[in-house]
Each structure stands twice: as structure tokens, then as C-alpha cells.
């Protein structure tokens, strides 16, 4: 089948998609966007989190056909004019990245959290990101990164 979507602001069309393919497979293998990660492929780890019509979803749980005609933003689409988004920058600076396989999903999930809540508390962050598994960091520096990004975003909004 043919799938037509908007991905990271660009109109994309792919042909010969098998009906059983997930949005994650189409992004990674057909659209050359492997940033969204394939860690569990059953919606448990959050590594493939993308925006689908502005709502964060696990791309592995979305059938490719469901994405037809819709708008998708992946981790590759979060940069602003070629610069790292403040959330991305905070993850690097806080040491929240080790192997980094969970990072794209966490960056998207954090991006979404900070869109909804400017200065989330620790319990709010933990609850919001509990669907994103990280095996390397023990999460402490991810918590630091979220706070750092929240501080920077709220400061830039005030200016």
C-alpha cells in the first residue's frame, strides 16, 4: 500500500508498504529516519516515542496505515534551525546520555511534558517518564536534565 504523511514538516510518500508494518518500521527502514528506536517493539520501553498529530505515541504500536494522511514529528525533527532543542542540549549537558538508545524516546517524552507543564515537580516528572525505560543511567541524571531544560525554557519564555 501507499502511505502519505507529513514527517518533520515534510510531505513524505512511500509505496509497497506491507500492511503488517508498523509506523516505526516505515520511519526507520523506508524513510531513512532511524532516530526512533526499536528496543521492545511492544510499547513497553518508550524508545520509539514520536508525535502523531501532536500526541506522543509509541511508533511500534501504530500500524503504518494508521499514519496515512497524518502529521508525525520524530526526534530528528526537534532541532530548531539546526540547533539542538533545549531539551536535547540539557540531556547532553546533564550527563543523561550513556548508551543513548533510550534517549530519542525520552527527549520526545520530555519535550511533550514541558509543553504541558512548565516546571514539573520530581513526582510529576517520574510519573510522566515512567513509560520510558533506561538501562544505563538509573534515571537520576535524566531527572536533572528535565529540570535543566525546564529552567532554560521558562527563562527564555520570560525574555
Amino acid at each position, binding site marked *: 500500500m501507499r502511505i502519505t504523511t507529513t514527517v518533520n514538516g515534510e510531505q513524505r510518500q512511500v509505496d509497497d508498504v506491507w500492511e503488517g508494518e508498523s509506523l516505526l518500521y516505515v520511519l526507520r527502514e523506508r524513510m*531513512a529516519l532511524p532516530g526512533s528506536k526499536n528496543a521492545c517493539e511492544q510499547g513497553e520501553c518508550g524508545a520509539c516515542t514520536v508525535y502523531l498529530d501532536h500526541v506522543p505515541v509509541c511508533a511500534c504500536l501504530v500500524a503504518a496505515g494508521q499514519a496515512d494522511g497524518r502529521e508525525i514529528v520524530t526526534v530528528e525533527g526537534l532541532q530548531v534551525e539546526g540547533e539542538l532543542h533545549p531539551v536535547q542540549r540539557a540531556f547532553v549537558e546533564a550527563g543523561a546520555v550513556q548508551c*543513548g538508545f533510550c534517549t530519542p524516546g525520552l527527549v520526545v517524552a520530555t519535550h511533550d511534558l514541558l509543553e504541558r507543564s512548565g516546571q514539573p515537580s520530581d513526582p510529576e*516528572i517520574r510519573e510522566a517518564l515512567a513509560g520510558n525505560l533506561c538501562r544505563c543511567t538509573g534515571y537520576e541524571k535524566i531527572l536533572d536534565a528535565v529540570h535543566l531544560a525546564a529552567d532554560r525554557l521558562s527563562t527564555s519564555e520570560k525574555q
Partner: protein
Amino acid sequence: MTTVIARPESHTKVIGGRVGDSPQRPDGNLKVRGEFAYSSDLWMEGMLWGVTLRSPHPYARIRSIDIGPALATPGVSAVLTHEDVPGEKLYGMDIADQPVLAIDVVRYQGEPVALVAANHPEVARQAAKKIRVDYEVYEPVTDPIEALGHPGWNPGQHSTAPVVQVVELNAERARLHPNGNLVRHLKIRKGDPAPVADVVVVGEYEVGMQDQAFLGPESGLAFPAEDGGVELHVATQWLHSDQQQMCLALGLPPEKVRLTLAGVGGAFGGREDLSMHVHACLLTLHTGKPVKMVYHREESFFGHVHRHPATMRYEHGATGDGVLVYVKAAIYLDGGAYTSSTPAVVANAGTLGIGPYVVPNVQVDCFGSYTNNPPCGAMRGFGAVQVAFAYEAQMDRLAAELGMDPVELRCRNAMTEGAQAPTGQVIDSAAPVEELLRRVQSMPMPAEHPAAGDTDLRALPGGVSNVTHGESVVRGVGYAVTYKNIGFSEGFDDYSTARVRLEVVNGEPTVTVHTAAAEVGQGLVTVEQQIARTELAVDRVVVHGKDTRVGSGGSTSASRQTYVTGGAVKAACEKVRDVLLGMARRQLGHTIAGLRLDDGKVVSDGEGVVAAIADVLGDRVIEETLQWRHRPTEPIDPETGQGFAHVQYAFSAHRAVVDVDVELGLVKVVALDCAQDVGKAINPEAVVGQIQGGSAQGLGLAIMEEVIVTGGMIRNPSFTDYLLPTMLDMPPMKIAVLEYADPHAPYGLRGVGEPPTISSGPAVAAAIRQAVGKPLSRVPIRPEHITGT
């Protein structure tokens, strides 16, 4: 000595990036942008997808394999079996006993039987289902103690009846390998064989099978080379060990099997053994096309070794005032179907089996067995994790028997520098066991949990799912301390190779560091840059991609890379520096005392700056390649276990504070504080990251993580059913990093990665026991163990 406390007040970075600083990782920006190329992200024009057909049975004889219908499937390019393996058909890191593809017998569920390459992964998977394998199914050997013919214990743990028609075991079939079912029996015999003590405590303990659960699945891309060889881009922990095993299986010389490290999504021991390496190369050599293989999560549970489950019986004897007189231990580790690294895991569990305590009389018998359970091998902590649960539970039990405080009992028996390990090895650098315990003991305690009904549900055990709202929540506090060998032991030739190049690029002196040491997320690439900047006083340092075009870096395991590859990079830089300073002397035409490098310049104490490095170099290039070794170790005596077995020891202690809902059996770890001696923190932020991440894995084993195996079958091969700690499960940590230099190691550093995974779990288990008042001698501790229902 300095102390670094986690969660700094400010995120201001020290710019500079030399040893002791915390510069950002060179791959960080790529990773947050989603542009870092992991082994599962690779793509080539015209590539095929490879899949593996695996045995559904833990033990069976293969009567026949019919690949005809699979091969006839449209889109399929190849279907291969053991007959297509051109070289050695068995592989293994030290002992080659594992078939590349099953030959006549399968010995564990998930053993690879056949391969398919097709133009789409789903086409390959469907074709694999059409391969007809006729099995004669045997009753599996599942008890690691009975597998050795030893009288069993823990009758509740035996296998359940399988559903298929099964041929019962007889003496011949119960022997899984030609030499029987014993992988290794390690004995420690020290002091009086029949010691007598005032107080004796005995306990039996079990540790479940843990999975590394790295997030990046086993994967890689192989493609044929013009010289008849093969290229493989893969996620691994040791490129050269892989290469050596692959050459044997493929029947190719090393120059025709070239490996490049792709992005690695975590490892934790699970990538020491080969997974899809040979398989992808077989398919690519057979088809002449690039072949990509990526395991699904379920397949990953069958595609790598796990942490050995352990069954342990301990007896501790002490004087009435709490001085240890003796320890006796019998330790059984289930190695599963093939050898993997079981011999070395047995060595660690045996030699480290009584913990960091001074004990004059020690008898340890540590066994590794073959069974038809999933193969077990390396996982962070490597044998030291299992025994720590037992010896630390014993210390608590002994303290209770003596009416002593558990920390006081530990301190009374703590190892110090100059103490003798059970192997007779004298600890010849700092052993701050007591200080580590005192450090965590003196850290501020978390706030008491609020009265029932008055609390944020999210703070309760079970979180918002807690249905009692905290009426039955009891707090407990537990301590544990441990030590771990760093680097490869028992006389292993444990070296690393570094190639360091210094040249002027765009007017700026530039260092390129090339090693084959695998970066798996821990930050070795950052450390390599820091060492080169420190030794050569140059800001711009490029870390070359990791591949087999330079000599072996040894394994990224045993917490050894900063020590050994760091040592190699340091030594190669020193050699480059000597050459550079020689050039400077010749150019100056006279001898200047005390020439050294500082901030891009050649300086001397007497004359200050004498030349810029860039000017000394001009268009010349200095390149040095060398192998570097830590001091040698020795094999231990097979009868007494005595010998200089380990190159270095690292120590850590944890204090865990838990809230337990004793009615529901739910646990919330409220605090998990750690003190660790790292000798020298080469990168303090990365050290803290290792402690936090390592502690999370220990917490996981204590209360949630287990590969459940019954009848040789894995029952929970998914992240739905194998539970990993989430952000809600990990508490904030207070961390003290001690720096007592080890005079034998580069910069005085100690390996960092493993100790926190070892002492965290036993501390959590101890805290739960204190809250619940039950022995809880098996981990992971589940709700039903706490409630007794």
C-alpha cells in the same frame, strides 16, 4: 582524597576536558538528535534481512531438517543449516562447545537451528516457519545440583511437566557434554579445616536469573568484500574475540574478516558472546549481498547469555564478641547449556565468596554446571553479585544472633590494606571497607513516611495502584558492602592496544586516538580524549572509529577499560611526547632541562615557553602504536584456591531505605545511598553515572528482575513480563566518591562499573528483611514472599 556528591547545585561545566574533569561525551549531540548510528540502524542498497530459526525445545535430538518449502518461498535468497558452516562448527570464547547452527542435538530452548535471508524481514520470518525440523524431544536436565549427581535441595524449584511427548532421561542423555555436566569446581581451603566457633549461623540462599536487558537489540550488517572476505558492523564488547571466533567458523584468515563497532545500545556482559555475527556473515557470503539482522526483544532473551542463577549454602562461625572465625560455603551456579564464561564466573564467585572480610578459616566449594536451561555467562558483577546476596544476609543473621548492630559487625571484620583474601592474596592498596560503611551510615536519612491517609499516593509502595493507602507500610534500613576484582584474572594475558597520532590539522595540533576497545555507553571515548589531552597538552582530540584495523583492546567487561585501554592510551601518548620533545631539542640545537608540554606548547621550567607544538611538528606526523599490560596475575592452586589471582580490587557500600506495605507485599525503595572508592575519578560525572546506573540494576535483581525458567523454558521473554526498574522505582541517591589511589594503576584509578551493581541489591534485601521480619532468602523478593501467601 576528595569527595564528589551527586546532583550538583549547578550544571556549570568545567571546560578543559582533562583527567579529573567532566567534559561532555563526544557522541552526545549525535545521540540526542537521533543521528547516532546503532547496529540496528544500518542500511545498504539491496540488502537482505536475515532471521534465525530457533529450537522450541530445551533438549532434543534433531532427526531431520527439510528446508525445501522455505527455500521455495518467493523473496527468499538463502536457507542455511550447519551443513553450510564452512569452518569449525563449534564456537566459544575459551571453550568451543556451542554449535554455530545445531547439528544433531539442541541443548536449550532458542538454540539456533537454521537461517533465512529474504528481501523483507517478515518474508524471512514466514519462510523460517516453513522449515520442517523433526525433533525427538528429551526430558531436560534442569537442576544444576542434580545435574552433577549431588543430592538436591530446594525441592520446590524442580521443573514442571512439559506438554510434548518426552523421552525420559537415562544416564547417557543426562550427560550433556562429553566430559559430563561439571564446568568447573573451584575450591578454597584456607586455615583450619575443622574450626570451632562460639556462635554459628547457617543459611541457604537463591538468586534468580537476571537479564542484561540492554535496550539496543543484537544486530548488525554484514557485506561481502571484493577480496572474498567479509565486513561486519556490529554491537559487541570485544571486536577481536569476535573476529577470532568468526574466522574459525567461516574458515577465513583474520585479514579477510574485518569488524567495525557500530553504535552499541548497552551491553552489561550480554554482548561478550557471539550472537548474530557468524550467521549474518554466512548469509552474506552465501548470497553475495549485504545482510542485516536485528533481533526482536523476545528473540533477544534467547539470543544472549544471562546472569547465572545461584543456589548457595553458607555457614558462618564467630566468637561471642563478633569476630569471624570461619566461613564455609557451597555455591552452585547454573551455567545452562554451553560453557560461555562460566569458568571465570565460578572463579569470581568462589574467590570473592565471603566478601570483604578478614576470615582466618575458609572453605568454599563453587560449582558451575551444565543444564538444559538458557546458557549463562557474563553480566555486570560477574559472579560477585550472587555471593554478595548470601554473605551479606549471613552477616545480618550473625549480627542478630550476637545482638550486634549489623554495621558494627561488618566493621569489626572489615578488610584493610594488607589483609589477606581467602586466596592468600594480600590486598596491596587501599581497602576502605569500614570507611565506606561509615560514610553511608552517616548520610542524612530520608524523611519519615507520613501518617496513613496523609500521603501522596505516588510516594507509597505500589504508587497510585496501592489500594491500602499506606496503613500497613513499615520502613526498613539495610546495609551491604562488597568488593570486586577489576580486569581479567588467573594469569590471563590482559592487554590493550593504542595507536596515537599527533599532527597539525588546519594549523592546530590534533591527536587521533585509535583503539579497538568497545564503547558501549560507559563513556570510554570521553576518557580516551581526556587522557590524550592530559598527556599531550592538546585540546583537539579525535577518537577514531573502533575496528579491527588496530590491535585488540581486550573486552569491555570486568570494569577494565579505563584501567587497561586508558593505560594503553596513556603509554602511547607518553611515547609520542618523548618523540615530540626530542624533535624540539634537536630544533633548538641545545639541551634544555625539564622540557614538558603545557597548553599546546613546549615549555621548560627555566625558560618558559620555548616553542608551540604546531611549530615543532610542522608537516610531520608522530604515530605510535603499543600494547599495554597491567601487572601479571597467577592461576590459583586447584586444590587450595591459593594464589595471586586478581590484579585489583574495588570496594563499594550501600545503605537502602525501604517502605514495605506488608499487607500487599509491595516495596518502595525510598533511598539507596552509596559510597565507593574509585582510586581516581578520571571523569567524576561519568563515575556518578556508573554508580547510579549500576545501583539500579542491583535494585532490579533484589525486587523485580528475573528470567523465569521452568522445565528449561523461558516464561517471560518480554519487557511486559520481565520487569525493569522505571523512573518511579529508582529513588534519589546520595553518593560519596572516595579517591584512594592504587599505586599499581594508571593515575591510581580503580575500575568503577561493577561494584555498585553488587552491593546495592543486598542492601535493598536487608532493608526489606528488617521491615518484614522474615528471612527472605531468595531474590528477587516478590510480594508473595513478603506476605507469605
